[in-house]
């Protein structure tokens, strides 16, 4: 009865509900499971797994909590706040609270050093950037159409952009030989491949600053991309959710800066996805944004945003917080400084054991080069190494293959989701592991040399 009944049940569900499009079978999530089963705690479980696979920004909460304390009316828990409660609670207009849109537009401009201004009327809400990315895909593409996307890329895009939309993702292969830069040749190759396979390319998705690389796109690359999409008449979606995590030079260049004053670019093709989850550290509040230069897309996305509006309670809080110019000005600098300190610290400790990372200046993670710890440059060996890192070293790193990286041996390692003490312990564990691995390799090298010399001795 059991299996027949469950087969019948399965038939009652849609293909989407029963396929693996949600992507949770990826190794990216296996590490999380290992962490969930044995999470590190400084006193209760000091030998547990340290979570370095979660790109969260926990470095500035003290700063933010102080603001919350000083501004209780933003949280509707004061008499003044309560008076606004009713209007906030019944407001379900998908345009969003005007104060919210204005505050977000202003914040986006500040994060880009006031080099561009954003129009509050183009701000559309989404259920986090997860919801926003799916929504922009629904607006721009039909089932079977494709987006090009540079690899390595954030694993959950496989779900966000493809699962319910039926859209395909075609990778643009980027290589370590040129620091994973996006080249014109790679763009053309990916597009050509799609043409040959009769796949209709609708757009190009870029993540800038990049997850998992932590690097930003330079002006030349951005211009190459802009002329590419204009030439092919396809959309450009720029996921800029890490914009405020840029912690050192060179300065971040938003797509908004590139197209401003560029008469050759068709603005109707340009769309930005934003969120407060990484820059502010508020993934729980589900503040996702679509900013499009295309009026029709703004209108369509706005109607679709009904499926993932931001709670007005949260809109109210965010409007208040982001309008506090003094606080925000200080926050942006403090956030950047703390990230820079963390990054420098990691690089220094890794240098001690000759482990390198891709040179980066943004994000909440580094792209660590562990290729020399692989027995062979294969995906299998990457999985073996990863297994060791989780089980023996008790660190949850994310293997490059889960980011669709074509070169084995790269790992994304998050550094902003823990305190200084935990970071220190994590780095010590890694250093120990690297030294042990080297000893083993040296040991086996010595064994080989000994065997060779005794063999020679026998022969001579």
């Amino acid at each position, binding site marked *: 009865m059991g299996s027949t009944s469950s087969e*019948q*049940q*399965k038939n*009652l*569900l*849609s*293909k*989407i*509900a*029963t396929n693996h499009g949600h992507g*949770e079978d990826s190794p990216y999530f296996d590490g999380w499971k290992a962490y969930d089963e044995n999470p590190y705690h400084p006193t209760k479980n000091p030998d547990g797994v340290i979570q370095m696979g979660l790109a969260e920004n*926990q470095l500035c*909460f003290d700063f*933010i909590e102080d603001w*919350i*304390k000083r501004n*209780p009316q933003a*949280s*509707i*828990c*004061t*008499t003044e*706040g*309560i008076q606004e*409660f*009713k209007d906030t*609670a*019944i407001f*379900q207009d998908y345009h969003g609270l005007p104060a919210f849109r204005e505050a977000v537009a202003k914040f986006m401009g500040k994060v880009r050093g006031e080099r561009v201004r954003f129009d509050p009327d183009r701000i559309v809400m989404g*259920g*986090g950037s*997860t*919801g926003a990315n799916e929504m922009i895909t629904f*607006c721009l593409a039909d*089932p079977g159409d494709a987006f090009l996307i540079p690899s390595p890329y954030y694993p959950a895009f496989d*779900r*966000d952009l493809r699962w*319910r939309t039926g859209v395909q993702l075609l990778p643009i292969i980027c290589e370590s030989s040129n620091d994973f830069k996006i080249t014109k040749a790679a763009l053309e190759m990916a597009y050509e491949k799609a043409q040959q396979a009769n796949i209709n390319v*609708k757009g190009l998705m870029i993540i800038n600053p990049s997850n998992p690389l932590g690097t930003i796109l330079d002006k030349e690359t951005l211009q190459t991309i802009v002329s590419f999409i204009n030439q092919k008449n396809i959309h450009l979606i720029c996921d800029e959710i890490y914009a405020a995590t840029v912690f050192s030079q060179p300065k971040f260049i938003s797509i908004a800066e590139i197209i401003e004053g560029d008469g050759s670019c068709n603005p109707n093709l340009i769309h930005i996805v934003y969120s407060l989850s990484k820059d502010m*550290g*508020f*993934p*729980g*509040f*589900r503040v996702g944004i679509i900013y499009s230069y295309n009026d*029709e*897309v703004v*209108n*369509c996305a706005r*109607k*679709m945003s*009904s*499926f*993932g*509006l*931001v*709670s*007005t*309670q*949260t809109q109210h809080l965010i409007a208040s917080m982001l309008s506090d110019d003094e606080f925000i000005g200080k926050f942006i600098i403090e956030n950047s400084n703390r990230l820079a300190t963390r990054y420098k610290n990691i690089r220094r400790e890794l240098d001690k054991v000759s482990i390198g990372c891709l040179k980066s200046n943004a994000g909440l993670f580094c792209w660590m080069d562990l290729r020399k710890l692989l027995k062979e440059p294969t995906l299998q060996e990457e999985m073996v190494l990863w297994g060791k890192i989780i089980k023996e070293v008790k660190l949850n790193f994310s293997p490059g293959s889960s980011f669709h990286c074509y070169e084995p041996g790269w790992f994304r390692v998050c550094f902003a989701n823990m305190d200084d003490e935990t970071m220190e312990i994590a780095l010590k564990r890694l250093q120990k592991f690297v030294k042990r691995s080297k000893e083993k390799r040296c040991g086996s090298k010595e064994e080989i040399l000994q065997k060779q010399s005794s063999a020679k001795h026998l022969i001579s």
Partner: protein
Amino acid sequence: MRAPKKGRRQSSEGDNEEEEDELLQFLGPAEGTQEREDKAEKGPTLLKKEYNQSVRWQEYEKNPYDEVKNPDGIIQMGLAENQLSFHLLESWLSRNPDAAGFKRDGESIFKELALFQDYHGLPAFKNAMVEFMAEIRGNKVSFDPKKLVLAAGATSANETLMFCLAEPGEAFLLPTPYYPGFDRDLKWRTGVEIVPIHCSSSNSFQITQSALEEAYKQAQKNNLKVKGVLITNPSNPLGTTITREEINLLINFVSAKEINLISDEIYSGTVFDSPGFISVQEAIKDRNLEGTDVAKRVHIVYSLSKDLGLPGFRVGAIYSNDEMVVAAATKMSSFGLVSSQTQYLLSVMLSDKKFTSNYISENRRKLQERHDMLVSGLERVGISCLKSNAGLFSWVDMKHLLSSNTFDAEMELWKKFLYKVGLNISPGSSCHCSEPGWFRVCFANMSEETLKISLKRVKSFVESTKASNSDVGGSKSPRSSRRRSLTKWVLRLSYHDRESER
């Protein structure tokens, strides 16, 4: 003879010449306007087809009523909001500032909440939600928090269920009249179709066996695989709760056809009068179907937008006995999670049992009062409403005010109400009602004074209509009967013309 085109006409006093003129107008299809929705045209090449926003909102927004600033403005009676019990929420908030202030036991938990994005939801919130749902149902049934999936409002919950249960091109049967937003929520991005189960005023719009069978047949005729039935209980726009007979009929039907039953119960807390509310969960229990395959195909949609009056907070939920549906819907909820800030506030509020029990009874009492005010006010001017016991609106019968028994006449009346009477009410055709002349009129989204003013306006309108009818030469009756026969004759003529044009 070519049927003349229907033009956009300026609002005018309903003088007879114009009314006759209108009888010669091209008469639209008998079905509601949404039936004419373009399936063919895709719209701009780079975009999916947009969902068409109604013009009604725009008119109201241009000229909204305000007691002081714009006393002649349009009164919004098309918005099903519950504004009657805010004072209860506000007083709770003032007594419990920590809940909104990110504090637990006096300690700040801001960081914990800001980082919480687990799609399983805040356990304390889900526990509080299921207890609240049970309390609304008189604790006759209980709910398991593990079977509850959170969503960004019922809008998102309904769409997610469609994604989980149907392929593009498959269909759900819905009894008419139904909430217009379903055309977007259930169909737009999912590609799922809606096939109406026609209900008629002859039996108070109850769902019948023959209507169900007819709808199913219609779907098959159009090559649409039926995946389930979706009901709204209590009903929007009718304001009635489903009867025991209907729910049993539905359970038997979905069981026989091996399809799903979705019960959108977002108005469950607005039942203010007998007969009581029978949740589908209760019906399953009463028939000893718990744990069976039938029970696995029954899903409930809930929300706090109507019962608690918090549409802005986007709190929706799916409740399912099928663990595969729960698993799939949980993953999909990533696209529309409830803000942790909101989950926390409401977990504290709904865990306060003193508050919830007082709120539930007080809310019901106020809704009853308001409902009675509207219904009796309309009765006094000869307008009757469908007998109802729930919801934030009444289903009003204005057939006798139509110039003809047509949807065009309904639109004409709607425009009169909007521009002349200054009331934005919802025409039945927008709810896919198969009979012209019904309107949904909301009563819980305004103050008592504003409702009184609305009733005064209706009274003036009805009286002036009567007056103008008797003013124009001779007694009313012969003229009306001549108009009626003229109507039939013209109708027949226009209809034949349309036929020949096809």
